[in-house]
């Protein structure tokens, strides 16, 4: 690590404001069968990406904004739909997305995803729909449409390459002492069908999405999948104020998330 290396520049106050109290550590996987995922990526200016990441992590180059929708028809939380918006970062090796806004369509999903995964989740009308010519994801909050993402002219991705390499989410959580940490968890996927096209955002209310300065600039890809997927329990807490390489990580252990 060198002093000149690129790090995030998000203020602790901003990160704290979105941090979620995290007091229950999940022990079991969360499994969703025959779900739908819509994962779209957009380039954003590198400076904008750095401004949305804490000083402990590196931005990806180029800066990337990821918008992900889930449509869950069955599972432990019942049917619900979910959307999250994050900025790509490197917490070491793997690319991940720091989530700065999330929405779920049922109170049960909101509660579970907040308390056990640290998603800054709010109740909203979330919809992921597949029509004859497009994939459309939308979020409406208090009757106002705040996010709409769509991808047209989708092509099937077939054979051994029929997968989406979804970057895992990390979330900001409060540690009880006012200093937020980042919660890291993994997910695994069994893809059944993958479509890909070029996305666009007819509606992107940056203020409602918690980051007034963040606007998607250049589309990378929009991919839709039918998938069985599993979210594994959080295992690590990452620092926010010091470079990860220097500060190390905290391994979660037991129901209280105590340090190992």
């Amino acid at each position, binding site marked *: 690590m060198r002093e000149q290396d690129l790090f995030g520049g998000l203020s602790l106050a901003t990160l704290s404001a979105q941090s979620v109290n995290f007091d229950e550590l999940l022990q079991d996987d969360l499994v969703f069968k025959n779900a739908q995922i819509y994962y779209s990526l957009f380039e954003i200016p590198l400076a904008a990406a750095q401004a949305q990441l804490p000083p402990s992590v590196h931005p990806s180059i180029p800066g990337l904004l990821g918008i992900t929708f889930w449509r869950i028809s069955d599972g432990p939380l019942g049917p619900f739909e979910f959307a999250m918006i994050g900025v790509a970062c490197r917490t*070491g*090796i793997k690319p991940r997305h720091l989530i700065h806004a999330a929405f779920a369509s049922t109170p049960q999903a909101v509660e579970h995803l907040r308390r056990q995964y640290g998603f800054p989740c709010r109740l909203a009308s979330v919809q992921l729909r597949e029509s004859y010519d497009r994939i459309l994801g939308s979020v409406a909050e208090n009757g106002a449409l705040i996010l709409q993402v769509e991808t047209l002219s989708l092509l099937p991705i077939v054979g051994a390459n029929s997968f989406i390499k979804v970057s895992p989410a990390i979330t900001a959580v409060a540690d009880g002492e006012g200093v937020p940490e980042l919660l890291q968890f*993994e997910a695994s996927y069994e893809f059944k069908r993958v479509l890909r096209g070029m996305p666009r955002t007819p509606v992107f209310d940056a203020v409602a999405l918690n980051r007034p300065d963040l606007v998607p600039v250049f589309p990378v*890809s929009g991919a839709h999948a039918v998938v069985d997927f599993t979210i594994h329990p959080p295992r690590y807490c990452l620092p926010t104020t010091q470079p*990860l390489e220097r500060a190390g990580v905290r391994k979660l252990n037991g129901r209280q998330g105590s340090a190992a």
Partner: protein
Amino acid sequence: MQFGLIHELSTPRPFTSEGQRAVYENAIEASVVAEQCGFASTWCVEHHFMEEYSHASCPDQFLMAVARATTRIRLGFGIATSVPAIHSAVRLAEKAAFLDVMSGGRVEFGTGRSSTWNELGGFGAAIDDTKKSWDEYTRAIPKMWTQERCSFNGSTVKLPERMVLPKPWQKPHPPMWVAVTAPGTEIDAAERGMGALILSHSDVTRAIPRFNAYRERIKTCEPVGAFVNNRIATVNWLYCHKDGEYARRRGKELLESFSYTAAQTVEISEGYPSSNYTNIGLLGGLRADAESPGEKKKFASGLCFGSPDELFENLRVWQDAGVDQMIFLIQSRELLAQPELLESLRLFGSKVMPRLAEYNLEQKREAAQTGEAA
């Protein structure tokens, strides 16, 4: 087994004109010293928009500078990106032939198609078509070199009859290679009678099945060029020091620096689901497979960081496995001071290469005796 260098022209922040020039000049000097030490080749990658990781956007110009400072060392395109949005096939044929003439026939022509969103997205390339364009380039370029006038009507290469000039110095043309990262690409190389430039670092036991598959398939190849280039080159790291522990410590620093710069790029498979990019490429492949962010990186076992004795033992295994040329990365973000880097090359050239050459002769003598006895 022969040895070569491969230059990423990795450049540390803050970026300055003077610092950039120093990176280029140091790499040229390393190539000159490598030639003096008996290295067979010096290669230059081609990358675009890769901050810090590689500022080697014009490898033909770098290799030309090396050509004018050397007399014998071969000059490798590692690789020429065979994607229409980045280069036309004609321009690649011209650049390679031009360098071949100016260097008196020293070009090795590596081909590939890039694997990052940084590059392919940056040029607006048709990502789903890169394998198709690469395939056409490898078939069209040898025709441009060997036919007085050439025409080609493909889906990505469209050339009405023209005389592509100059023609290469080497006859019939420079040896052709394919960059091999994803498993299976060595078969693509073999099918076309091209050398396999294996860029993914690996331990030798994992590499041997790929070498064997290549050697088997190339026996029945249909060469895209005028001859079969049945050779395997493998990229590795090199830092040689009389104190093996010190060498490994410095090597670890090099790898960490390299991994840091590589980790920030966006691989195609991470951002753009596509039928022709199954695996992450060299950069992504070099990222350690860490479940946790703090987990220590796991690096391949066959890397050449050590004392001369240790490197001899390591490379003997690679040589026995059938590697024709070992090509070394030697620098990342100018981490090694230039005198230290040159000393490593000189130590390797004086203490390791002669022993490996002698070992190779012994192996051949033993094989000959065994053959006579049989």
